[in-house]
Structure formats: structure tokens, C-alpha cells
């Protein structure tokens, strides 16, 4: 099985879908000539031409709106935001136009559009460029929210998102672009809304997605050395949530820790915890704890930034609490 970076896996997904379906096109800042701020669109302009790989001005609301209009007339746009921090400028098109079009047209107008780009904190990019907005988008009926953790999932889920008839918010991990992993050959499509067990375990379930999957795998290694067997369940899709997989895993381990990069208050994990307490109350042996980013604007200072971020050590501490082993 070929080893690919997360970045190249996304690139392959775009190339394969653009080759498969002439209605698919990519639009955003620096996606063409510069080949993407993170080089996800490398080679695509050369291969598909400027009609299908469109460089835009720095006008997030504008090109998001053009994308919505294109989807209304039957194309399948992929709108790249240089980061999801900048998409705040386009949120009216995403929330008020894309998410509601099928509903408000009485089902007459579809919205097969993908909004994609990197999310979350990298290193010392400051408060305005180190944010996680999945909870905001997952809050909106009409949007699907996908956050892959591995190259294979990135490829398979982006292909599924492009083929989906509804608007998809596709959030990539800025720190994941260089990570490598095996990606199966062929037309890899990963179904939207299915979680995946990245490591099996018996004592506690670590619920995670995107960057926190790697953190949880490291935490699981640390826990193993202390005799605690942790299951790492990668949600992959925030909305719709794979409740069956969550309930099956937590119902078996009886303890769970929800690990997310974003802020604590009203974070995406809060929804997961609510579903667990409602769905499998009698299976719980401890309150479900959440490990999240600190409830502050991300500090620029290197040490403060580190302290504000989720870490394997913080996950281990939470696990010991739910295991009553602190």
C-alpha cells in the first residue's frame, strides 16, 4: 500500500474527482498558480486548466458566494479557504445560503458544495489564526462537518464530500499536512458519518478527531505502560455523529474521555457527551470528562501556547480520573 502525506492524499482526491466528474472545480486564494498555500492543489492548474482551478481575490464572502451560485446551477464546487480562520468572513454564505438552500427552495435547488481548508492551531500563529470552528458549523442544520485525522481518511472522506449532494464543511489539520500514512489504492471513498477505531482497548474510550487522534494514540501508549487499555475512537465526522460506534465502544469500556482541540464551552465534544449520558446512562461507571484547549484566545508566547493546547499528558490525567486511579 502506498505511503502518502495527508497533503498528497487530499491532492489525489481532488485530482481523481476532477478527472471523474467535469462538474467538479476548485476555487480559492492561491489555489492555481501558487499551487495552494499548503500545496494541496499542486499540479491541478496544469492538469485541468484555469476554468476548473480558479484563483480568486482576497474576498472570502465573494468567492464563497460564487461557489454557492455555481452549486445552485448544478456544478460541484470545492471552495478552499486558506484557513478556516478567514472563513469567518464567508460565514453568511455558508450558514445563510449554502446550509438552507435545499430547505428554502422546497427541495428544488441542491447544494453539492465543499468548503475546505486547514483548521486548528499550528505553531505560534497567534490568537486570530489558531482557532477551531467545527462546533459553530456543526451547530447548523443543513451542514455536514468532516475532520479526518489520517491520509487515508483525508482522501476517502474528501472524495465522499465532493460526491455528497449537500454542503460539506471539510476541516483539515494544519499540523497534519506533512504526516504520512498508508492509503489504499483505487477509488477510495470513506462513508460520511462513520467513526473508526484507531486502536482497540478495554478500559476507557478516547473519543477524538483530527489532530487529537494522534494525541490520543500517544496517550494510549503512555496508559498501556501503566496497565490501562485505552480504545481510540476517531469520530472522523462531527455531524452526523456515529452514535452507534460511540455507544458500542463506551458501552463496552464504561468510561470515556472526549478529547478536542477547540474551546471547552459549547465545544463539539459537549454534544458527544450529551449523547452518551442520554443514550447509555446505565453503562457509565464515571462521568465522561473532556480534554479541550484552554478557554482563552490562543497565546502567542511559545510556552503559554503549549500550556493552552491539548497534550497526551492531559489525556492521561483525565483517564486516570475516570478510572478512579488518580
Amino acid at each position, binding site marked *: 500500500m502506498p505511503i502518502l502525506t495527508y497533503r498528497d492524499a487530499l491532492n489525489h482526491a481532488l485530482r481523481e474527482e476532477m478527472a471523474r466528474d467535469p462538474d467538479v472545480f476548485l476555487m480559492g486564494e492561491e489555489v492555481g498558480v501558487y499551487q495552494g498555500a499548503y500545496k494541496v492543489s499542486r499540479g491541478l492548474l496544469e492538469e485541468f486548466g484555469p476554468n476548473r482551478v480558479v484563483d480568486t481575490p482576497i474576498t472570502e464572502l465573494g468567492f464563497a458566494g460564487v461557489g454557492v451560485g455555481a452549486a445552485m446551477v448544478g456544478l460541484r464546487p470545492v471552495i478552499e479557504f486558506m484557513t478556516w480562520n478567514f472563513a469567518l468572513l464567508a460565514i453568511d454564505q455558508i450558514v445563510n445560503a449554502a446550509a438552507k438552500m435545499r430547505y428554502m427552495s422546497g427541495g428544488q435547488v441542491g447544494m453539492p458544495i465543499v468548503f475546505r481548508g486547514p483548521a486548528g492551531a499550528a505553531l505560534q500563529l497567534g490568537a486570530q489564526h489558531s482557532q477551531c470552528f467545527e462546533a459553530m458549523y456543526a451547530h447548523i442544520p443543513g451542514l455536514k462537518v468532516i475532520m479526518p485525522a489520517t491520509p487515508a481518511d483525508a482522501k476517502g472522506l474528501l472524495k465522499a464530500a465532493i460526491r455528497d449532494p449537500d454542503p460539506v464543511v471539510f476541516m483539515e489539520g494544519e499540523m497534519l499536512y506533512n504526516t504520512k500514512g498508508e492509503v489504499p489504492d483505487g477509488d477510495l471513498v470513506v462513508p460520511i458519518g462513520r467513526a473508526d477505531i484507531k486502536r482497540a482497548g478495554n478500559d476507557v474510550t478516547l473519543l477524538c478527531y483530527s489532530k487529537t487522534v494522534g494525541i490520543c494514540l500517544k496517550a494510549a501508549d503512555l496508559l498501556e505502560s501503566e496497565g490501562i487499555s485505552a480504545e481510540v475512537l476517531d469520530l472522523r465526522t462531527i455531524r452526523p455523529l456515529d452514535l452507534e460506534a460511540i455507544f458500542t465502544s463506551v458501552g463496552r469500556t*464504561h468510561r470515556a474521555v472526549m478529547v478536542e482541540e477547540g474551546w471547552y464551552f459549547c465545544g463539539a465534544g459537549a454534544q458527544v457527551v450529551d449523547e452518551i449520558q442520554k443514550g447509555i446512562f*446505565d453503562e*457509565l*461507571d464515571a462521568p465522561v470528562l473532556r480534554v479541550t484547549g484552554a478557554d482563552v484566545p490562543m497565546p502567542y508566547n511559545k510556552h503559554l501556547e503549549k500550556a493552552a493546547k491539548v497534550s497526551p499528558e492531559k489525556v492521561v490525567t483525565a483517564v486516570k480520573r475516570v478510572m*478512579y486511579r488518580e
Partner: protein
Amino acid sequence: MATNVLMEALSPTMEEGRLVEWKKQEGDTVAAGDVLAEVETDKAVMDLVARAPGVMLKHLVPAGTTLAVGKTVGVIGKVGEVISIAPAVATPPPAAPAVVATAVAAAVAPSPTALPPVAADGVAARVKASPLARKIAADRGVDLARVQGSGPEGRVVARDLDRATPSTAPAAAFRPAVSAGASFTDVPLSQLRKTIAKRLAQSIGPVPTFYLTSEIDMERVWEAREALNAGSAADRNEAGKASKISINDIIIKAVAAALKQHPACNAWWQDDRIRYWNDVHVSMAVAIDDGLITPVIRHADQKSLRQISAESRELAGRARERRLAPEEYTGGTFSVSNLGMFEIDQFTAVINPPEAGILAVGGTVQKPVVQDGLVVVRRRMRVTLSCDHRIIDGATGAAFLKTLKLMLENPLALVW
């Protein structure tokens, strides 16, 4: 984290206990396993031990207080730890000593954070348990109030039930502990047996009991006893008293021998099965100051009269001093209750669950009986067998009683 010290179930049937004496005073250092207090259970005076190390921060009840199982009697924690707790008021004796303020008590200040308050009427705050622990407890019929929780603020979590289930099963589902190597055969209930059990239990209380009475000629037992005791007059026990064999010793020996021949009567009701014991452990009812207790003579069928006699005397003595360990008064397979010394002619005894039967023994009296067409004076004794009809049918019980009668009327059968 402070740990509540609970009134624990120190005997299988204990529902409340009287705190006789605190062995650790407030401020004393405590290691896990240390004896904190002596508690009088329904059967004996037992040790209440520490479940966590620390310092005895607080006695919540004075010595002499009677409390239900599961109620908090004290708190163990770190020196200076702030706890918040209202004293549990139960039934302290008159002039109960006030809880004396000590240096440690000074640290005991109201705080909204630490321990759950115990309501002033003595009813503890509800048991804290994880949802999973509640589910497991419900499945197993375990009373959570009797389980010491190891989670924060004493929360009962799943692992506590794994540890505690055997010793904390409530009386309703009481199954005496079975020691390793115990020998018995479990026979699942047949449909017929199930129907009989259900219908009879509907008719009479939980244990559908019937009674069989037999009058036994005791002349030869009497002679045997006289002869044995005359021969062993020089045989003295530790206290210097001649160790004489009693009629009751002979009855226990005969009951054990008869049970060996009638295993159908040497059994336990186990709800979904009947446990037929290969061992014979005879419980003997002993009256004590404010009740009774049933020390067990184990393997009575394999013991000599002299052994049974010595053991029953020793057990009865310690029973009256309330110094029996739980394993000494549980695990019997059949009971004998003797009120002969009170000149009772005949009575019915109440079955000691899960045993299948109990033999009520009346006094041996001289009376005229007809023998070979002549009226003669004989020593006679009436025994009444109480049978759990779910296990023992009329004919089964009667057959056992007949064997017992033959053995007592011909005591040589006991050595045969």
C-alpha cells in the same frame, strides 16, 4: 480525599449494629486494616476496620450508638483536611458523651465541598453510585448501602461491587459462604419441583413449612449415656470438670448419621436449584441473653460422640459470650433445636434458611406406654421435624424421621 467510615454488614444478616467502643480516637493515625471500633452485630461483637489510611478525623457517633448498616460513623482523612458533616443522630444511650473537640476537630469546619451531609434525622444522604454500579447491583440483588464506595465522596463504582458482592449480599438473597473444598451436588429444579415450590410458597410464607412429629423411646439412649459417662468419669476436660455426654450430643450424632442416609433432607434451597450437601454440618440452636444463635458442628457425621460433645460445649460457651466468628455460625446444612431442658413436651421450630429442615426436640419424660400388650413405664421423647416443602416432601421427611427413631431406639446403630 476524606473517606467515610460506614457501619458495615459484619454478619450476613446484620441490618444494624451498635458501636460498642471506638478503638481509634480522633487524631489517631490509621493504617488500612486497623481496627477502628468494636461493633455488636446481631450475632457477635466484631471489629470494624479501616478501608483507607489517614487520620481518624472525626467520630460522628459516640460509643453505644446503634446505626443501620451503610450509615456513616466517622471520617478518615488527612491531617487538617476540612470536612463538612452533620452528626448522624441515631439512638445514643442516655448520657452519651459529647463529641470532644480536639486539635483535629478544630479543622472540622463547615465547607460546601467535601462530604455529603448526613441528614439530622439519622438518614444518610442517598448512596452515591455510578449508573453502571447501580445496574450491576440491581442485577445481582446487592444493596448499595452495604457497599463501601471507593470513588470520590464514597461513590460506589463497578469495581467495588466486584470486591464486595459475596459478603454484602442482603439477607433476602442470603447465600452462606461456601468454603473451598466444600462437597455438594447442585441439582437444577425440575418443572415439577418448580411448580411445587411456587404453589406451596403461595400457600404459606416464603418457606412453605410442614411438620412431622414422632415419639421416640429413649430408654436405650438413656442407658447408653449412663454407661458412657460412668466409663469416662475420670476423663476430665481442661476446666477440670468431667466431660459428660448429653442426650443432645447423642441426638446430634444420630441426626447426622440419619442425614447421611437421607441426603434429600440435607440440602439448601438456592432459588433456582437445590443444593444437596455431601457434608453434614449440624447447626445447633443455642439460647443467649437476648436471642439465639446457631453454631455449627461441621462434619458431624464423621465425628465421635466425644468430639461432638466437646465441640458443642465449647461452641455454646463462646456463643453465650458472643465471641463466635461468622464462619462458626453459618454454613450449616440442617438444624437441631432442643427445648427439653425447659420441660417442653413438643414444639415446632422455624427453619433456618436456606436449610431444608430443623428438628425440634422436646423433653424426655417417663410415661406409661403399651408394649407387647402391657402398660409399662418408658422414657419417651417427642421430636418434630419442620420441613421446607419445596425440598422435602411428606414421605421424604417421614423416612428420615423413621431412621432417626430406629437409631435412637437402638443406639448401637450409631457405631455400626
